[in-house]
């Protein structure tokens, strides 16, 4: 019942997004869309996924899009590119897909094919083999560790891509000029500054809790990394990019991103060295279950470090680019006056 209401709201928002021309409103609606889909994930028992979507979909992704539209302009042009042809294609594809769903197993049926192959083994045996209650974490970090390694490498690569596209090498004397234009939030918002100062340690602590509690409840490296980075993002937004760069050196963050991936890979190598398969943690310790615990702890740590570092790098790159644009615009204004 709950899922039907949530899904209908999602459709309403998707249609509103199609019709909006103001990109700011579109980004706001995307934020609501993220919140809604995360509530849907909770209603579908996917607590870990909801956790991730909460931190990513509602927070970081909205912010990144917003920073991007402050650089690229707020209004969409009215001209459409062959709307009727597009509608035709979309309707045909949608019709075929709906025809395809008629053979799908019904929602929630326990005998659907998806529940019959590996899932029972994960649910029944993971407690003996891995020894941690959160099956999602044990599948993520142990049974399918190689897959997760690939995902982490993809995130790392995307971070490098953003860095390559947006990185601005800066000289020191320019740095101070740029910093002087962008501290408006810092100057005028006393209340928010104090509240943020109270909240940031809590957020960092909570990120660590999520990191290490991932074995027993929803959480893990991915979520912890995103939450950790959002604390840094909050700090950056309030106190300016140059202050944040003084607190966290960009070079250090880049090093940590690479270190996380390397650390993850090294755990796999270590299990090879000890005579097991790649990412077979049983051999890491005398007791297989203790080995699994150790392996999952190390791997989640690597994931958390990489994700946090990449998210911070991405945000720093966008914010740095924006500061540079503002700086050059200010210069132009000054010259024209």
């Amino acid at each position: 019942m709950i899922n039907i209401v949530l899904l209908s709201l999602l459709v309403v928002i998707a249609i509103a997004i199609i019709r909006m021309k103001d990109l700011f409103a579109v980004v706001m609606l995307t934020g609501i869309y993220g919140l809604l889909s995360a509530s849907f994930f909770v209603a579908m028992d996917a607590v870990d996924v909801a956790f991730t979507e909460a931190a990513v979909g509602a927070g970081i992704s909205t912010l990144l899009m917003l920073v991007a539209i402050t650089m690229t302009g707020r209004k969409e042009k009215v001209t459409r590119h062959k709307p009727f042809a597009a509608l035709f294609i979309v309707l045909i594809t949608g019709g075929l897909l709906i025809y395809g769903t008629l053979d799908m197993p019904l929602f929630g049926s326990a005998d659907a094919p998806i529940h019959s192959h590996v899932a029972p083994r994960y649910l029944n045996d993971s407690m003996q083999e891995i020894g941690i209650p959160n099956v999602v974490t044990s599948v993520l970090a142990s049974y399918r560790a190689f897959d997760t390694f690939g995902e982490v490498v993809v995130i790392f690569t995307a971070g490098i891509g953003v860095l390559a596209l947006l990185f601005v090498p800066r000289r020191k004397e320019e740095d101070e000029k740029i910093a002087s234009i962008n501290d408006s939030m810092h100057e005028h918002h006393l209340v928010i500054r104090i509240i943020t100062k109270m909240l940031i340690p809590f957020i960092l602590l909570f990120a660590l809790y999520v990191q290490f509690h991932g074995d027993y409840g929803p959480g893990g490296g991915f979520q912890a990394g995103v939450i950790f980075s959002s604390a840094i993002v909050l700090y950056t937004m309030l106190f300016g990019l140059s202050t944040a760069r003084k607190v966290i050196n960009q070079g250090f963050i880049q090093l940590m991103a690479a270190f996380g991936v390397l650390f993850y890979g090294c755990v796999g190598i270590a299990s090879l060295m000890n005579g097991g398969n790649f990412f077979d943690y049983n051999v890491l310790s005398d007791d297989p279950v203790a080995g699994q615990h150790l392996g999952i702890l190390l791997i989640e740590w690597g994931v958390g470090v990489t994700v946090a570092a990449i998210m911070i790098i991405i945000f720093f790159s966008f914010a740095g680019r924006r500061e540079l644009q503002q700086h050059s615009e200010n210069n132009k204004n000054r010259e024209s006056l």
Partner: protein
Amino acid sequence: MLIAATLAIFVAMLLAIFRGIAGPTLYDRILAVNMFGTKTVLLISLLGFVMGRPEFLDIAIVYALINFISVIGVLRYSDTDQFKHRQSNDKPTEKEL
């Protein structure tokens, strides 16, 4: 009573979505997103109790935090010249819709 509260939250969410779609100003939309975020926190807490496993309240905590961060971020980045004094320019775009 839990079910009734969940339904009430749904109604409030729906109304917030209407305000988010209708605008008319930028700040109305931010307000709608903020209200929607708070309602989501409540919905998730309630869902935990409705489904009988209330130990997953961590998600609600994350929501409360992230909601704050995103609203601050939106305000921070809507504070630029491009968005300033848009009151007069906002209304025609709504009529276009």
